[in-house]
């Protein structure tokens, strides 16, 4: 069995990398220039966070794996990201709503993790928290704009909400190894974030004229390496160069 702290750090890295890749797919395809730039900027933040977590995970593992080895040379079943972040990017409403649901969780999460007893996680989180504040504000403004916009934009946002909501439950899952880290003051207890997350979601949804779905079956599996078919396609794109030309460098 892998060390709990390694698994924990790897999960944080995988979430950030996979979401960063999904955001990067918008580069050159944004609905307008400003949003193209914004999505690429958010992608850069996420990939930067992933690099910091991967580097730490590799050092901690002590087998000589670098950030690149962990990002480019693991297969689907080794990835431990939540399913939410691997959903295909969809339309702009889908991408923005996912970013909102994720950053409304990750902003307070990183805020708490920056007080972790693990100094390295705390340092990475303190930087990431500031970045997520911008992602949260930007995505929240767009959720409101789309929901309170035209009939067309509101319909797309509602559709995205129905698609995405069943994937939000996995953010709050905790397994036994993580429970031990939480008790040791190293990891964040996601249950402690839930009230604030719901409050943020409800506040923004009220302005966006949409309602939070209730009593929905929640999808699960990504954290254990059980993924949808979409992750394989994403990795094929992400890892192609290193698979086709092993060890190639810039």
């Amino acid at each position, binding site marked *: 069995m892998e060390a709990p702290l390694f698994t924990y750090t790897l999960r944080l890295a995988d979430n950030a990398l996979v979401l960063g890749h999904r955001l990067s797919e918008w580069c050159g395809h944004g609905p307008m220039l400003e*949003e193209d730039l914004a999505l690429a900027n958010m992608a850069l933040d996420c990939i930067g966070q992933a690099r910091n977590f991967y580097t730490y995970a590799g050092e901690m593992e002590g087998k000589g794996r670098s950030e690149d080895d962990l990002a480019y040379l693991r297969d689907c079943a080794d990835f431990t990201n939540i399913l939410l972040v691997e959903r295909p990017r969809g339309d702009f409403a889908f991408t923005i709503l996912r970013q909102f649901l994720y950053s409304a969780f990750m902003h307070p999460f990183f805020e708490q993790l920056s007080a972790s007893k693990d100094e390295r996680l705390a340092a*990475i989180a303190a930087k990431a928290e*500031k970045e997520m504040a911008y992602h949260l504000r930007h995505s929240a*403004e767009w959720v409101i704009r789309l929901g309170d916009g035209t009939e067309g934009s509101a319909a797309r946002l509602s559709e995205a909400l129905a698609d995405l909501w069943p994937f939000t439950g996995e953010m709050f899952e905790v397994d036994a190894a993580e429970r031990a880290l939480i008790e040791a003051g190293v990891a964040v207890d996601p249950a402690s974030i839930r009230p604030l997350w719901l409050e943020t979601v409800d506040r923004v949804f009220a302005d966006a004229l949409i309602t939070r779905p209730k009593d929905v079956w929640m999808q699960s599996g990504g954290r254990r390496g059980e993924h949808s078919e979409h992750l394989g396609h994403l990795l094929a794109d992400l890892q192609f160069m290193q698979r086709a030309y092993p060890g190639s460098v810039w």
Partner: protein
Amino acid sequence: MGAVIELSTHGDARIARAREAAARVCDPEVPVLTIDDLGVLRDVRRDGETIEVVITPTYSGCPAMDMIALEVDLALEKAGFVHRKVTLSLSPAWTTDWMSEAGKAKLKAYGIAPPQGRAKGRGALFGVEEIPCPHCGSLDTRRVSEFGSTACKALWRCESCREPFDYFKCI
């Protein structure tokens, strides 16, 4: 303060000279600012014979960091330091509060609105900002996008002189 450096030990003078060399390196994306103006240069110290320069990234994914590390290394080499290394430090997390007043003035002269006030917590998440136009000084400005040409900037427009401008975000 030059006299103080002259009077100090050989080791301290070396550090002062290394610091001076490193402090002249400019940000490749905002070339009017040195890494010292930005607060990216955190420390210059000795590790035995090796001079160690510590820098910190502005944003987790800042693509300029590799370039800055390379330029610091080159600057030290030029200044005659054979044993040298550049270390990246994440903690404490960089904040615009570390930007020097001289740096803010240089930014404004370059046409980029400097960060306003102190970095804030989540209380200001949905707050309203008031950013003076770096060209005409008008406060009648509008945010076009939270994200601009680089991770550290947002895109704004002045409603008085109609010029678009970059705003160096407060974090």
